[in-house]
C-alpha cells in the first residue's frame, strides 16, 4: 500500500472562511442535515431526533433535499453503489457543507473489512469533518459528535468543503478508482462546486 498524500489547504482558504461573527454563530446553531440513510446507522437517528434526545433543541433539523442541507451524515457502511449517490448528493449541497462519518465502517471498513463492495476509508472520496466511532454509536455519541462539529465550525476548522473544492482532482481520481463509470464521458451536467 503506497503512502497516501492527504490533501492540504491552499493559503486563500481564509478568504473563503471569512465569515463574520453573526453568520458563524448562525451556521453553528442551525444545522440541517440531509435525511439520507446510507447504512444501518440510520436507525440510531430516530431516537436522537425524537423526544428522548431531541436534537431540534440544538438547532438541528432534517431536510429532505441536499439543496437546503448543511450536513451529510454517512450512517455506517457505504457500498460502492451508494457511494455514487452520496457523491452526487454531496455535490448538490451548497457551501458551506459538512460531513460526519458515522461508525467504524466509514473509518476503516469495520466488520466489512474484507467485503468486495464496501469502501474502507470515507475521507478518500469526500472530505469528512467529524468521525463518530462505534458500531453503532449510541445517540449520546451522535450528539457529542454533533457538538464537536459545532465547535469546529465555531473555530473555523470545519473546512472540508474548501478542501473538496481545492483538491477536487485528487478526490475525483480516488472516486474514479472504484467508480468505473466516472471515467467515461457519461457524467451528467456539471455541478455546483
Amino acid at each position, binding site marked *: 500500500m503506497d503512502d497516501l498524500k492527504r490533501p492540504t489547504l491552499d493559503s486563500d482558504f481564509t478568504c473563503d472562511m471569512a465569515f463574520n461573527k453573526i453568520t458563524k454563530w448562525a451556521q453553528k446553531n442551525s444545522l440541517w442535515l440531509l435525511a*439520507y440513510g446510507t447504512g444501518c446507522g440510520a436507525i440510531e437517528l430516530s431516537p436522537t431526533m425524537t423526544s428522548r434526545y431531541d436534537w431540534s433543541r440544538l438547532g438541528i433539523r432534517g431536510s429532505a*433535499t*441536499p*439543496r437546503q442541507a448543511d450536513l451529510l451524515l454517512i450512517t455506517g457502511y457505504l457500498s460502492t453503489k451508494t457511494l*455514487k*449517490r*452520496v457523491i*452526487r*448528493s454531496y455535490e*448538490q449541497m451548497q457551501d458551506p457543507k459538512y460531513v460526519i462519518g458515522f461508525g467504524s465502517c466509514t473509518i476503516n471498513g469495520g466488520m466489512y473489512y474484507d467485503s468486495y463492495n464496501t469502501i474502507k476509508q470515507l475521507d478518500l472520496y469526500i472530505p469528512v469533518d467529524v468521525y463518530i466511532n462505534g458500531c453503532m454509536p449510541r445517540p449520546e455519541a451522535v450528539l457529542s459528535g454533533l457538538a464537536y462539529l459545532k465547535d469546529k465550525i465555531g473555530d473555523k476548522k470545519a473546512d472540508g468543503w474548501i478542501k473538496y473544492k481545492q483538491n477536487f482532482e485528487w478526490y475525483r481520481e480516488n472516486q474514479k478508482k472504484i467508480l468505473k463509470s466516472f471515467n467515461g464521458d*457519461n457524467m*451528467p*451536467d*456539471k*455541478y*455546483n462546486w
Partner: protein
Amino acid sequence: MNVLRTIALILSLGFLSSILFYKIRELRNLSIIASLSVALGFVIKFFGIYTGIKRAFSYKDLFYFKFDAFSNFFVVLILGVGLLAILASWNYMKEKKGETFFYVFFMLTILGMVGLVYSRDMLSFFIGWEVMTMGSFLVILQSNEKDRFKFALRYFIISLIGAYSLLWSMFIIYNKVHSFKFSAFNSSVFTKGELTTLLITISIGFLIKAAIMPFHTWASGAYSRSPLTFTAFFSGAMSKMGIYGLFIFLYGSIGLSAIYKTGYNEFFQTSYFQYTLVWLGVITAFLGTLRAILSEDIRVMLAYSSVGQLGYMLIGIGLGSTLGLTATLFHVVTHGLFKTSLFIVVAAIIHRTGKTKFHELGGLINNMPIAFIATLISIITLAGIPPLGGFATKWLLYEAMIEKRMFFATAITMLASIGAFLYAYRLIQNLFLGQRKLEHDDVKPAPLTMQIAMLIPALGMVFLGFFPNLLIKYTNLFIELINIDFFKLGVKVTDTAFTNSYGYWNAFYLGSAVVIIFIVSTIYYNLQRRAKIYKIGQLDIYTAGEYVTRETPLNYSFNFYGFIFDSLKPAIKYSVTNFITRISKEFIALSDFVRRIYTGNGQHYAIFTMIFTIITLIYFLS
C-alpha cells in the same frame, strides 16, 4: 364620399386582391395587410365621431348602416385581431395545404363581420352574420387536421340552427313592426308571451355563436381544428359577435323596459330572462373552466377556456346594469388581447414542433423567449391577477353582480376565475418550463411575424393594467350611446381610482406600488456581494441521488390535475356533449330502422302506395 363607403371600399379591395393574387404569396399578404391596416387607421381616425347623417348609409329603407363609436369599438377589435392573425398566418400557413384559399375566406369573414357590426337593420345584420358563418366554415376546411370535416360540419349545422332561430324572430318582428330597423322596434305591439318567445329565440341565435353552455358543443372541435392563427381570430374576435348581437338586440333595439315587461323580480331587481342569462353565464364560466383544467390537448384547453371566458361576458350582458355592461365590454377587449396572443403562441409552438399535447412538450423557454414573455403576460391577465389588465374585468364584474345582489352567482364565478389560474399555470409550466424533450433541442424561436403578433397584445394588456380608466371612459360613452340610462348606480372613475357603492380599487397606485416594491426587492436581493449565483443544467436536480440522463422523462405534465379528475369522476361523465352524442346515435338507429321500409321490392312499394291512398281517401271522405 362618407367614411363607411371608404371602409367598405378598402376592405373590398383587400378581398378582391386576395382572390386575384391568390397564388402570389407576398403580393397577396401585403395587399391584405395594407387594406386591413388602412381600414383600421381610418376607423381609429374617425373613432370619436358618431353623430351626423353623413356617417350613415342606407338603401331604400332596407339596408341601413351607421358609423358610431359603439360599432367602431368592435370594428377596431375585429380589424386589429384580424391584422394580427393574418400577420401570424404569413409564416404559419406558409407552404401548408389550403394556404391559397385560407386568405380569401378569412377576408370574407372579416368583411361579413364588419358589415354586421356597422349595420343598423336586421336584414343587413343577418346577411353579414351568414357571410361570417360561411366564411369561417370554409376557413376551417382549409386546415390540415384529418378530422376537420366532422367538426366543421358540426359547427355549420349548429350555427344554422342559430341562424334560423334568428331569422325567424326577425320576421316575427317585421310582421308586427313593418320595419327591419333596430330603432323602429316598438314593444307595445307585442304581447307578453310573444316578447318572451322573441327574447328566447334571439338569444338562442346569439348564444350559439358565443358558445354558451349548453350550446357549446361545436366550440372545442371548431376552435381546435381550424388553422390556429384563424382560431386566434375566431376566439379573439368572432365569438364576441354573439355578445355584440345580444347587446344590440337586447339593449339597443328591444330595450330594457320591454325585457322587464316579460317578468320582473323585485328582489333581484331584474327580469327572469336576464336572471337566466346570468346563470347561464355562471354555469358556462364554471364548467368551461373545469373542462379546460382537465384537457390534455393545448388547443382543446384554450377552446374550453374561451367558452368559459365568454360566460363572464354573458354575465355582464345579463346584469344589464352600467357596471355589468362595462365589465362585458372591458372583458371583450382583454379576452381579445390575451386569447389572440395565446393562440398565436400555441400556433408558433405547434408550427415549430408539430406536437399538440401537453405531455409531448416542455422546457421551451430558452428556445422561444418572446413567446414565453407573451404567454406569461397573457396568463397573468387570464387569471385576473393585479396589476395587469385582467383584474379590472374581474373587479367590475364582481362589483356589478354584488350590486345586483346575486351573491351565489358571484361566489361560483369567483371560483371559476380561481380555476382559470389552474389551467393558466399549466399553459406556462407544461409548454415553457420544466425539462426540455430531447427532440426539441434545436427548436427555433417563433417566426418574426408571429413574434410581433403575440407581443402587440401583450403590450396592450400591460397598458390596460395601469390605465384601465382610459378604456372605461370610452365604454361609458358607448353605453350612453345605446340609450341605457336607467341606472344611476355605476362605476365612478376618477383619475385612476374605481369606486362604486360596494368597493374601490385604484389600478394605477396599485400597479405602481407593485413596481416600486419589485425594484426595492431586487435591490435588496442583490445586496450580498460575496455570494455567487451559479447557473446549472437541467439535469442537475434533486433525484434522490440517482444519476439521470436526457432520456429520463422528468416532466410532470400528463394528467396534471388528476386529483380533481379523480375526485369529480362520478360527476364528469354527465356532459352535454355526451348527451348530444347519444341522441345522435339514437337518431341514426331510428333512421336505420325507418330505412328498412325501402326493401327494393316493387310489390312492397305498391302496397305502401295503396295503404297511403286508402288512408288519404278515408281522411278526406269522412
